[in-house]
């Protein structure tokens, strides 16, 4: 029963969403299913918070390596939660003072906004900026011409890179109009629009079919492993 009921819920919700694409009176049902998921996800946040607290408190009490970071995590977690729930320093909303606390929790000027703007956002941007270095190291490894395929990949990447920078124009800008298609900036566009698009579309068609088959397996209850049944 523990697995049968979720299976039925998944099947009914899935087929309802599919039906709502074709049967106008069922469109409202699709919205209802989406709202129910949002409610469920919101409730699951409590479980998530409990998981964070349990993992870090146990690490702290056992003095496992890195327990100092757990203190920072728990402090930040609690502080952000309190600041957000109590709407600390949130400017008065348009319905104040008739309706106290009517300003949005994320209103500019509020403490939560301040945390996001001056702590989370810069840290996020810093981490995102690291991507440039990771791209360089991955490209260095991927573009080593170990065999024919790798050499082709290297050559193509070289053309694209040059074609998208000023160097492409300087190197091949003098090509006569009759063979302007071979200018690096034009050739790189051709590669992206023809070869790259063709390969990408083939992958996307495969993904679409894979999604259809996976959905069908789940809706028909053939694949139940995500429910914990294991078979």
């Amino acid at each position, binding site marked *: 029963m523990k697995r049968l009921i979720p299976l039925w819920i998944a099947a009914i919700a899935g087929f309802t969403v599919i039906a709502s694409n*074709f049967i106008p009176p069922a469109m409202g049902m699709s919205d209802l299913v989406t709202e129910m*998921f949002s409610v469920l996800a919101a409730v*699951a946040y409590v479980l998530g918070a409990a998981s964070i607290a349990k993992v870090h408190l146990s690490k702290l009490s056992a003095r496992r390596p890195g327990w100092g970071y757990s203190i920072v995590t728990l402090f930040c977690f609690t502080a952000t939660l309190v600041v957000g729930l109590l709407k600390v320093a949130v400017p008065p909303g348009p319905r104040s003072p008739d309706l106290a606390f009517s300003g949005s929790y994320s209103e500019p000027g509020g403490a939560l906004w301040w945390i996001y703007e001056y702590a989370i956002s810069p840290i996020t941007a810093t981490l995102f900026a690291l991507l440039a270095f990771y791209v360089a190291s991955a490209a260095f490894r*991927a573009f080593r011409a170990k065999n024919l395929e790798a050499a082709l990949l290297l050559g193509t990447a070289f053309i694209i890179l040059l074609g998208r920078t000023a160097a492409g124009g300087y190197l091949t800008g003098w090509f006569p109009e009759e063979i302007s298609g071979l200018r690096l900036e034009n050739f790189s566009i051709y590669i992206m629009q023809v070869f790259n698009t063709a390969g990408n579309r083939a992958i996307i068609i495969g993904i679409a*079919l*894979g*999604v259809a088959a996976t959905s*069908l397996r789940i809706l028909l209850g053939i694949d139940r492993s995500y*429910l914990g049944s*294991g078979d």
Partner: protein
Amino acid sequence: MSTERTTHLARNALTTGRSWTARAAPLRRWRGAAVASAALTLAVSAIAAPPLPPQDVRVFDVPLDAGGAIGVKWTVPVDAPAGSIATFVIRRSMTDAERSSNRLDQRKTAYETELARLTAEGVAPESAKTQATMFAQQKVPTPAEGAAQEPGWIDVSEVPASAVAGSDGVALVKGLDPEQSFQFLVVSRGPDGSGAASAPTAQVRGAPGLFMGKRSFLLGWIIFICGAVIAYILLARSGRPMKIRRIAALEAVDEAVGRATEMGRPVLFIPGIQDMDNVQTIAGITVLARVAKTVAEYDATIEVPTARSLAMQAAREAVQASYMQAGRSESFNPDAISYITDEQFGFVAYVGGRMVREKPAACFYMGCFYAESLILAETGNSIGAIQIAGTAESSQLPFFVAACDYTLIGEEFFAASAYLSGEPDQIGSIKGQDIGKALAIAVVIVASVCLAVAAVVEASGSGIAIGIAAESVVAFLRMALTS
């Protein structure tokens, strides 16, 4: 000869269809000038005549839709002089929200105009703002509650008079809110911009049909592909052997888990950063169930950091069941499957740090990933972990291919769970996908050939019928694929 005389003769000739030159031979030399003058006079009279309003405007509901479309029909005025109507403009009444928005726009314009005037006159800024506000409120007042309001009209469609065949015009108005009622009217607009509006229709509302007719082709595709999948599942159940190609990345799962066991290090599994409403997360968790079973059998440890609390709960259920199946339920540690944060780079910071500190021997990335894909995979590469990735995000595939040992590309990722289970039912569903793929290949080939034929015909100028047929096939396929 006077202009009136010339015009009279010209009109007479045009209406009777006979040449007036025989009867008026002395006037022959004036013939050209007279005809031109007559035509000009007629044109001027047509232009000068105001267009007559359309008659008998009626509306009809468009069947087989979601209620968002209404058809409008009208009769072209019988007595309208030729050329007096250039276009027919279809208008609908505004909704309350549109009226309110329109009123605010008008008030804002009035405020800004008045403020500019007062400022130019040298009125102090604060006083000018107050006066401009009062002026705008007086000019565009808020209607009293319950008072009847002018409907207000929006142009929703325009039909050239030349496109109206016969005496009746018709236009479809789409994108309407089926919860709202609307009135419609049609305006005859002359070449000079003058217009005459018909009487508005009664309030009407689009009624949703029982089926979205325009999605018939999509339904057909779904039935065909799902039918093929189900047919192959039934064939597999009946005992027909199903053979699918070897997927190297999935063959390497045992090797990766075995390596982690030998090294005494954990296995790291990340089911993407999206929630359970994303099919990639579900596919990732189904793969997790298989990997966790192998981990339990090898008595290794697995860690599953998640970016969504619902995904954490589902992952716990799946891993626990796998441990039970392997007969090692006592080894299951729920805290190994933990929620970190929804924040994309917060999650990356945690996982990256953990990878560097604990150095897992095997890393699995199975689910929906965005910019974090390369950061995670490169970190895993730097610690020497064996890495297997799978995602349906085509933009992230190159990063995984570059940084991981094995990558499940697109459909392979969705086939992974079925492949690892080895059950005939699930293998059959993978075979069913091939029918869909064969259909896609056939459509691509037919469309390419038809486009090539049409291009050749256009260039050569011969075989027009074949060219038209080829273009018709392409148009049909385009409609069938985009409806």
